[in-house]
């Protein structure tokens, strides 16, 4: 679409005008940002300011909460555990999901639609349903309480997402380049590895990003499958909520640490994130 028709197009669809639009947008920004601003500002507050009524939005900031969290609380361990689980899940999901997606996209065979349907169905699977028997399985093979347990269950959902995303991605790529390579006597696997994979890089980035976000944000699986030595950031954060005596200061500073990587994604990798959110929905 040319930029000229694009502009006209948008004039056609706009709603509201002038002042009323401005007011609506202002209210929206306040609604969306207030919780975030409260969270981040509280992590820089002193205890006395946290419970001030009316709420204080202007105050003398302090770093003591972060200092305490780093000195006394095992934040480094929680963060390390979250990183190990997120990256472990992402690597495993891509290793399992991407080659399978390539075959599902490029080959015709009987039962293909059934396979795609069953992989899609994983999205509808309530986590708690798989969690109970999965826990028993982990118990019996001795993985309960380890990072591996969480990685293995997170990968079910993330590999399924990777397959769905990458099937679409590979299908949208022109097949001619791969065919040309095969004329020169390239094997199927080599074509996949040396031709298709490099071309699919943006799709791979999106898949990896989603896997990282999903496992970083996971709470239920970590809650049910980790031990204190493998506990992730959300579990660490939860354990500080109840400490009313310190007035949410440690909780909010840990939350702030937990969301920093997510805010960075919003700033620098937004394109890939939006691509992942809208896949399947729109061409």
């Amino acid at each position, binding site marked *: 679409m040319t930029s000229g028709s694009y502009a006209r197009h948008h004039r056609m669809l706009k*709603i509201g005008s002038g002042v009323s639009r401005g007011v609506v947008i202002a209210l929206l920004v306040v609604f969306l*940002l207030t919780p975030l601003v409260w969270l981040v500002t509280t992590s820089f507050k002193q205890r006395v300011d946290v419970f001030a*009524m009316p709420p204080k939005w202007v105050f003398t900031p302090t770093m003591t909460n972060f200092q305490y969290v780093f000195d006394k609380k095992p934040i480094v361990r929680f963060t390390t555990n979250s990183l190990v689980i997120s990256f472990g899940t992402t690597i495993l999901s891509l290793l399992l999901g991407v080659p399978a997606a390539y075959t599902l996209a490029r080959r015709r065979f009987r039962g293909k639609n059934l396979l795609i349907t069953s992989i899609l169905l994983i999205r509808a699977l*309530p986590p708690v349903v798989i969690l109970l028997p999965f826990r028993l399985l982990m118990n019996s093979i001795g993985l309960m309480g380890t990072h591996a347990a969480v990685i293995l269950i997170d990968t079910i959902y993330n590999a399924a997402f990777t397959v769905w995303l990458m099937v679409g991605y590979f299908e949208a790529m022109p097949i001619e380049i791969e065919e040309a390579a095969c004329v020169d006597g390239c094997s199927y696997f080599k074509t996949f590895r040396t031709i298709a994979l490099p071309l699919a890089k943006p799709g791979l980035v999106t898949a990896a990003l989603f896997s990282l976000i999903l496992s970083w944000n996971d709470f239920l699986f970590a809650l049910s499958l980790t031990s204190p030595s493998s506990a992730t950031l959300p579990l660490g954060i939860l354990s500080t909520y109840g400490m009313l005596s310190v007035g949410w200061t440690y909780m909010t500073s840990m939350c702030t640490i937990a969301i920093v990587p997510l805010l960075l994604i919003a700033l620098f990798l937004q394109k890939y994130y939006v691509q992942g959110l809208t896949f399947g929905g*729109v061409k």
Partner: protein
Amino acid sequence: MLSRKGIFSSKYSLYWLMAPLFIYLAVFYLYPLIYSVYMGFFEWNMGDPTMTFVGLSNYVAAFRDSQFTGSFINTATFVVAAVGIELTLGLALALLLNRETWPMRLLRTVVLLPTLLTPLVVALTWKALLNPDFGALTYYIRAVGLDIGRGVFVERSLAMAGIVLIDVWQWTSLITIILLAGLKGMPIEPYEAAYVDGASRWQAFRFITIPLLRPTILIALVVRSLDALKIFDSVFAITGGGPGTATTTTNFHIFKVGIQHLRVGYASALSNIFLAVSVGIGLLIIRNVFLSSRRKGGAV
């Protein structure tokens, strides 16, 4: 397209690249699900060495368990309320932001922020904001004279609304982002024709935008509903299913029975019922929405 013989020939390569995924899914996904079906026939508590075969009595008990049937009603209430509000607001927001100017682009970044955040962090933030005694938001709500009794998550009648509010805050943007992508791909000609014929803005919206956007709306609705069915973090961290059982969703109820009370046999039966319902809904949706959009040539 391939002529080479041997292990990478077209016949075998098919299995080579898919085998790792399907072996993995068989071991860590299918096997646990089948095991869950098996356990549903037993009376078994974790830590207790005896497993007693009880036939279908776990299932009979499940349908008589008002907490379980009640949790389905709570889940349905939550999904319908949350997704309904999110869809309405999300559509309005998409139309509002559908312009390519720099303030709109900046605003889109602000809008997508909530969807990225850790749901548990979001839950704890709102829990603190709505704390009955020290919550900043509680203070402002009371200051403008709204009656929230002893507090949003303390009052039976308000707790579910609170959980819905948090979901709306975090996920309305998801619908907006999906719909914005849909709006971007819409043709301009129908609008030109309509405005030439003297159509009002509302008529253009009702008779052009909505029908053209329908497939995208459907996908947004499905994606959001399937995720809303999984609601857990905010219930666990804020209300613990209460007050009473006002916010006990099915996910949370099964978690309580199986993981906290360790009644594994009974919880498995509940799981299996929940699974059957979810798979039923999922199959219906996939056949009607996802696969049909693939057939229509939607590459992605």
